[in-house]
C-alpha cells in the first residue's frame, strides 16, 4: 500500500487518498518509557500507527506527548536522528486525511525539513513536531516505506 504512496513523489502532490482501512485491533497495554507521561485516568488519548509491515498498533497516550516519542517508546521503526530538533526528517509520518486539518499548521522550520522527506504527501508531517491534544484523539498515522530506487530518484 505504501509503495503507492511513495510513488506520488514530491512533484505531484496529491491529497493522499490512502485507505486507512478500519480493522479492529486490541489496544496495547499502556507502557511508559523515556519521555512519555502517564495519562490521567479517563483522559487517555488514542493513536494508531500503521507500520511498514502494514500492521496497526494503537496506544493510549497523554496529552502533550509528541508522536516521535510515542513511536520510539513503543519500539516502532522511527529513527528520529536529530532527537526531535526538526533537523533531519527521519520522523516523517503520513497522517490520515481525516485528522490532518486538526493538527496546527507546520511552521517554516518543519516545512523546510518536509521538503527533504521521501515520498512527501499532502498529509505528511514530522512526528517530532506533532503533539497529542484532545482534538487528535484517535489519530491514525502511517510510517512511509521506501525502496532504494525511489530514494535515488527523489534525490536527483
Amino acid at each position, binding site marked *: 500500500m505504501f509503495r503507492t504512496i511513495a510513488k506520488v513523489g*514530491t512533484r505531484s502532490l496529491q491529497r493522499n487518498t490512502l485507505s486507512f482501512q478500519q480493522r479492529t485491533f486490541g489496544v496495547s497495554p499502556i507502557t511508559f518509557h523515556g519521555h512519555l507521561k502517564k495519562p490521567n485516568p479517563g483522559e487517555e488519548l488514542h493513536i494508531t500507527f500503521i507500520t511498514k509491515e502494514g500492521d496497526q498498533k494503537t496506544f493510549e497516550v497523554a496529552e502533550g506527548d509528541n508522536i516521535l516519542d510515542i513511536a520510539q517508546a513503543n519500539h516502532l521503526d522511527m529513527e528520529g536522528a536529530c532527537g526531535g530538533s526538526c*533537523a*533531519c526528517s527521519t520522523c516523517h509520518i503520513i497522517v490520515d486525511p481525516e485528522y490532518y486539518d486538526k493538527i496546527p499548521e507546520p511552521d517554516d522550520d518543519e516545512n*523546510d525539513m518536509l*521538503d*527533504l522527506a*521521501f515520498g512527501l504527501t499532502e498529509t505528511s508531517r514530522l512526528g517530532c513536531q506533532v503533539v497529542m491534544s484532545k482534538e487528535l484523539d484517535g489519530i491514525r498515522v502511517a510510517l512511509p516505506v521506501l525502496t*532504494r530506487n525511489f530514494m535515488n530518484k527523489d534525490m*536527483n
Partner: protein
Amino acid sequence: MNITRRFLSTNSNLKKLAVIGSGPSSFYTILQILKKQPNNFQIDIFEKNPSPFGLVRYGVAPDHPEVKNCIDKFNEISEFIKTGKVKYFGNVEICKDLSLNDLYKNYNGILYAYGSSNGNKVEFPGSLHQNIINSFDFVNWYNGNHNYKNVIKSLKGIKDISIIGAGNVAIDIIRILLGDVNKRWKSTDISNHALNILKESDVKNVNVIIRRGILDSKFTNKELRELLEMRDEGVEFKGWNKEDFDEQLKSLGKLDRVNKRRIDLLNKYKENGNGNGNKGWKLNYLRSPIGIMVKPDGNIKELLVKVSKMVHNEENDKWEYKSDGKIESIPSDLVILATGYKCEPLNEFKEIGILFENGKIINNNGKIENIKNSYCVGWVSNNSQGNINNTVNDSMNVAETIINDEDLINDENKEGRKEIEIILKNKKHKIVKWEDWEKIHSIEIDQGNKDGKPYNKLSFNEMLELVK
C-alpha cells in the same frame, strides 16, 4: 571447559562482517543488522582515523549540534562492543594497513562504507593558484582536522571571497565566513585555530558563483533560511539576479514545492529591505569561472566568469542554458571551490574486480553485483549525495540486503578478527579500540569545557599518543 566449547561453536556459526569506514552509513547499517539478527553476526569496523563518525565529526557545521545528535544513537554500539559482537579498529586504513585480500580471506562479507576522500575540482586557467581553496580542505580546517590546520593562515586583509558552487556546503562556509564569532562560533566545537583566525577576519563580501539557474539550486531551503535569518546578526542578503529568470518563471507558472518555497523565501528577504549589516552575500546564477586576474604581488584580484542565459527551446518546450558571450570580473581575494565531495575507488578495486563509475561503486540495492558477499552503503554508493535522512534510509535497505543474501548465509566459516589481529600485531600497528576512543573523547570534553566549548578535537597524533 564447557564455556569455551560453547563459545567456539557459536563463534564458528557467526557470519563475520568487515565494515570499511565508521561514518553514519556504517553505524546505521550495523545497528540495523544487529537489531534484526542479534545472534548471527560478528562485525568489525575499520576506520582510517583514530576517531569514528566520519563527516558527522569532520563535515557537519559546528553550529548544527542538533544534526550531530545522531551520535547518541551510534554510541549504542558500546553494548555490542562489550559483548564482543562488534569491534572497532580505529587508525586502520584499508588498502594501506590491511589489504582487501586480508579482509576477503578472513570475513564472510565486506561492507564498503568509506565515504568521500576529496573535493571535486573545477579547472580553469589559474585554478591552481594558492588562494583558490577546495571546500573539502576548508571544511576540515574549521572542523578541527589538524592535518588541515594550515589551509588558512590568516583572513586579515581578505575582504572579498568568491565561492564557486551552491550546495549546502557553500552555505555552511558563508556562515563560517560572515557569522558573528562571539554569538555563533565561540561556544561550538569549531577548531581553536579557525576561531582565532575568524576573530581577526576582514571578510565583508561573499559572492556565490553558480553555473546553473535558480531552479537547479542545490542548497536546501532550511540552510537558505538560516542564512537569510542571519540578517539579525548583521549579515545582509545582497540579492540574486532575479531578472535573468523573470521570463522563465512567468512562462512556467506553477512550480514544484521546493522551488516555490525557495523563490518565496528569496523574495521575502529581498523585499523586506536590507539589514543594517555591512557584511553580506550575494547569489550570482548563470556564471562559471574562466580565469583569474592577479595583482603585481601575485595575489588574486578578480575572478573572471562567463555569463550564460536561459533560452526557451520552442521545439521541446524546455528552458536551456546558452552562452551570453559576456564576461564579468568579480573582486575576489580568495576563491573557494565548493562543487561537492568526491568518492574515489580503493586502489585494489581493479585487481579484485569492483567496478567504480561516476563517483560511486556500481551496485544494486547496496549489493556489488560482480563480486560475492560485497556491499556498499552511504556516500560511496550514491556519488556523495544526500544528508543523514538519505543515509538512514539507505542503511536500512542495505542491512536488509545483507541479512537476506543467501550466498552470505551459506558461506563457510571464516576466522574474522582473530587472523586480522595477528596481522596487525606482526606489523606493530597501533589500533585505537572503542574504549580508547571513549577515553580520547572524554579528554576532548575536559579540554573543551575549559574554553566554554562542548569539546576540542585533538589531532590524530595527540589521540595516538594517548593510546598504549
